[in-house]
């Protein structure tokens, strides 16, 4: 088992924050999409 470090960001917490931030962005984008086409 090799060293457990992400290839970007210093820690996995940063990677997880990015992923969850992207989820937040998607929800916001979907919400605006819904409003626009309603």
């Amino acid at each position, binding site marked *: 088992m090799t060293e457990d470090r992400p290839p970007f960001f210093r820690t*996995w917490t940063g990677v997880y924050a990015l992923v969850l931030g992207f989820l937040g962005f998607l929800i916001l984008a979907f919400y605006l999409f819904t409003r626009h086409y309603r």
Partner: protein
Amino acid sequence: MSPLDFAVLFGTLLAIAAYGIWKTRGSRDLEGYFRGDHAMKWGTIGLSVMATQASAITFLSTPGLGYEQGMQFVQNYLGLPIALVIVSALFIPMYYRLRVYTAYEYLERRFDLKTRQLGAFLFLIQRGLSAGITIYAPSIIVSTLLGWSLDSTILLVGVLAVAYTVSGGTRAVSLTQKYQLAVIWAGMFTAFFLIVREVTGRLSFAQALAVAGKMGRLEVINPSLDFSTRYTLWSGMLGGLFLALSYFGTDQSQVQRYITGRSVTESRLGLMFNAVLKVPMQFFILFVGVMVFMFYQFVEPPMLFKQSAVRVVQESPRAPEMKRLEARYSAAFREKLDGVNALAAALDTDDAGAVAAARDRVRGLQEQAESIRTEAKNLVVSVDPDMEVKDSDYVFLTFILNHLPKGVIGLLIAVIFSAAMSSVASELNALGSTTSVDVYRRLIRPRESERHYVIASRVLTACWGGAIIGFALFAYMVENLIEAVNILGSLFYGTILGIFLTAFLLKRVGGSAVFLGAVMAEGTVIVLFFTTDIGYLWYNLIGCALVMVLGSVLQAVLPGGGGALKNPVATGAGPG
């Protein structure tokens, strides 16, 4: 289907299966057969996890849902990225630290043998049944529409998947999944491009979106707190989170995909790949369905997409009634076509009053068409009460067969079969590994050579393959089997997840307490299922919470504290 379609279909399926067998021949130990020698990179893991989850039904039912209900189903996946972050942070390091072959092996290290066997038993029942459905569900749809024999279709998918899974184990599954996913995406993007080209021959893309929106097909987010609404932001975030956490964290068909990584980092990146792409992917597949819906605003669709249901009436004395319904449906379609054109024209004028009037007219005509469809379905059921009339699963394939060019039809049928094979191969691989490692090696023949275990694993995997194909061949005998298996999964998933979360989070709870808590929780879930009307997705949450609460209470009250702390490393408390 033309000869070119057959060549594309069989060439694709046979080439991928043969390549998988040839490339992964000769595993000599369990490490290679079930963990791929820990050689997988994140891309392979990510694609393998994605291909395992995306079954044929994903590519048949999801566009059908988009066609019938619009985009709201995507909300069911909003809890998935959160679940994958939790699995990545909590589950993966533990599985690597203990070097397990199966998720349930971990339970013995953390608790005791009986808890491991309980977890493995629940998995084998649930996954063994659902793997049969993974083959049966697309086969019944494809065989009905193409006029193929159902048994031959099941055998085609099943035998090919069993052959390379038995031969090459985990590596063959992961390798073939990469190419199967390539076929799937090539097919889906081609279909999307061709559908959009058809639609934009009649309206601009922006107009098509605007009309689809006014017809209620582009509502993605529904923040309603109404529990009776099927798809909402909150049910997706909460119910979807627990479902995905259980599936990705404790279901061996997924665990086996990511424990093949060459490091924790590779496995985590593979899951993060899915955390980022899964929601957009589901959005895209639903959007394909919405575009098919827009296409059928200009080209008259069949009144019922399941033509075998229509034939039942046509061959009965009540055929004239079906003919009258079809005439009414055609008239309603023509009127709606006028309405859709008027709506598109009104949207160009920016006149809010005209848009509202045109929208209300189209929606009224859509409801009228739907009510004629309902009458037709009722007519079918009155002639044959056993006939399943739900036809949304047939929408996408009907469109493919009737409106896409030669060659592309073969590619799209290959998409469906590739998706079925990629899912069933993972399930088979997981059933084989769980039976081999958690039952055969642990309980029956604990001290044999590696070669012996590889041969035994191949035999057990082949036996599961035979059982799954046999189950699929006889699945038609129970019409509501698909829903029954889905419900069965939700009844067990919560309890399994509860055992694992207790292991990770409640470090003072021992084996006997969690075992009794799990048995009591499962009993309670089954009693609730038979005595209440709770939606079955909620059992994931209820079962999980019950195991954790009951385990904690029993740990406090049982003599001897409900079993000693088994292994500090397995709780995450020790050095790793």
